[in-house]
């Protein structure tokens, strides 16, 4: 059963159109909506005027540059109100970790402006935070690698004495590095502290098969769809540039347990490792679709289409079947455009590929 969006008349805004070596999920989310037959207007909200998706033909109808999430809600709403004076937006699908919390906190304000979305509550969002995951899931018998929160070098030194190398050092929001020595650990700790703030997370490495699971939670403890994949190609930044859909009942059961525990609403990506004895550990829960989300549509569960339907309050039957063995291979190619397009988006902070009514 596939979702048909061809008769849906609405405007959807999607964020994050970078498609380089660290791609954002916005472009594949738009592709998924189009794959489902969506013919409505698509508005792209970007933070950088050189995000490659801006220059892709037939992707977004309108593009607006947004203020960075750190700018605060007042600046954000000013910009949004300007955008709404140009185009109507019915649904926003935010795709970047750093902006999700702002959307959650502004839910009522955005609803008042006629904008809907299908995101977790603030409580759900905070519960999956790297700094809380360990505490909460450990108590519930959901495997989490031994993790520590570190605020200074002395603490890091003490932690390193209690676990074995190699281990991971992770930034509060982004980035993770595997370290093999105390020197490396101090170096990475300093960099991540400066870049993402405190605490920095120290996590014991778990050996095993790594899987990623994209899903949409219904907000009541169930899942509306779920696609698990194993990365086939991993870049030096740890990004999956190829993957295959797997059929592993243990993974499904694990994902169901996590989502039931959190009563997760909206899109998520679970990063998990299954060790040689079959035990599964949760490494991270990302509160958004992953950049490989187009694989979900390819495998028969168009998760962004489900998300859009839920945001609009339309009925959705949970999807359980998918095509195991579906693969994705990410490629890069040069988009040919014109400097005038870059000039327009740089100076006006907006670009329209379709006539604005």
């Amino acid at each position: 059963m596939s979702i048909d969006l061809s008769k849906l008349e609405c405007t959807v805004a999607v964020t994050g159109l970078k498609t380089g070596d660290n791609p954002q999920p916005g472009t594949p989310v738009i592709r998924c909506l189009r794959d489902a037959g969506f013919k409505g207007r698509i508005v792209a909200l970007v933070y950088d005027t050189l995000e490659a998706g801006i220059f892709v033909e037939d992707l977004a109808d309108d593009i607006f540059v947004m203020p960075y999430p750190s700018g605060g809600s007042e600046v954000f709403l000013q910009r949004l109100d300007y955008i709404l004076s140009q185009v109507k937006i019915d649904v926003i699908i935010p795709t970047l970790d750093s902006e999700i919390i702002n959307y959650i906190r502004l839910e009522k304000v955005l609803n008042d402006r006629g904008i809907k979305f299908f995101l977790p509550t603030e409580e759900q969002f905070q519960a999956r935070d790297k700094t809380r995951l360990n505490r909460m899931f450990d108590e519930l018998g959901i495997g989490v690698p031994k993790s520590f929160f570190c605020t200074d070098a002395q603490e890091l030194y003490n932690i390193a004495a209690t676990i074995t190398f190699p281990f991971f050092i992770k930034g509060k929001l982004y980035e993770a590095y595997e370290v093999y020595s105390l020197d490396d650990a101090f170096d990475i700790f300093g960099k991540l502290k400066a870049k993402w703030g405190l605490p920095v997370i120290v996590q014991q490495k778990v050996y095993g098969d790594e899987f990623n699971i994209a899903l949409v939670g219904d907000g009541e403890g169930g899942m509306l769809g779920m696609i698990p994949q194993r990365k086939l190609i991993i870049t030096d930044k740890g990004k999956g540039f190829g993957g295959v859909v797997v059929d592993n009942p243990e993974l499904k059961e694990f994902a169901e347990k996590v989502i039931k525990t959190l009563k997760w609403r909206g899109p998520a990506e679970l990063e998990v490792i299954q060790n040689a004895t079959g035990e599964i550990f949760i490494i991270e829960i990302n509160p958004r679709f992953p950049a490989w989300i187009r694989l979900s549509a390819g495998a028969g569960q168009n998760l962004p289409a489900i998300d859009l339907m839920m945001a609009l309050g339309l009925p959705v039957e949970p999807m359980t079947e998918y095509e195991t063995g579906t693969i994705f291979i990410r490629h890069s190619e040069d988009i040919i455009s014109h400097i005038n397009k870059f000039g327009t988006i740089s100076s006006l902070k907006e670009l329209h590929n379709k006539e604005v009514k």
Partner: protein
Amino acid sequence: MNTSKLKKIAISESGFIFDPSTGISYNSNEMAITIINLLNKDRSEEEIIAKIMEEYEVTHDAIRRDLEYFLTQLKNLHLVS
């Protein structure tokens, strides 16, 4: 020998093997496919050796040695236990 996992793998005619539970794939040859198919029919090691000797000009000792090595590989890959 437990071959339940082996029964779930997908094998193409070209010898490409895909384990759907882990996403890992392997390349194999004609002999490997023959053995896997026989294991999936729950044939014993002696039955497999006899079948191969019917089709190929090999000694019992040689095929036993190769079969044991291949089964060890399958065990290491967690495809049989």
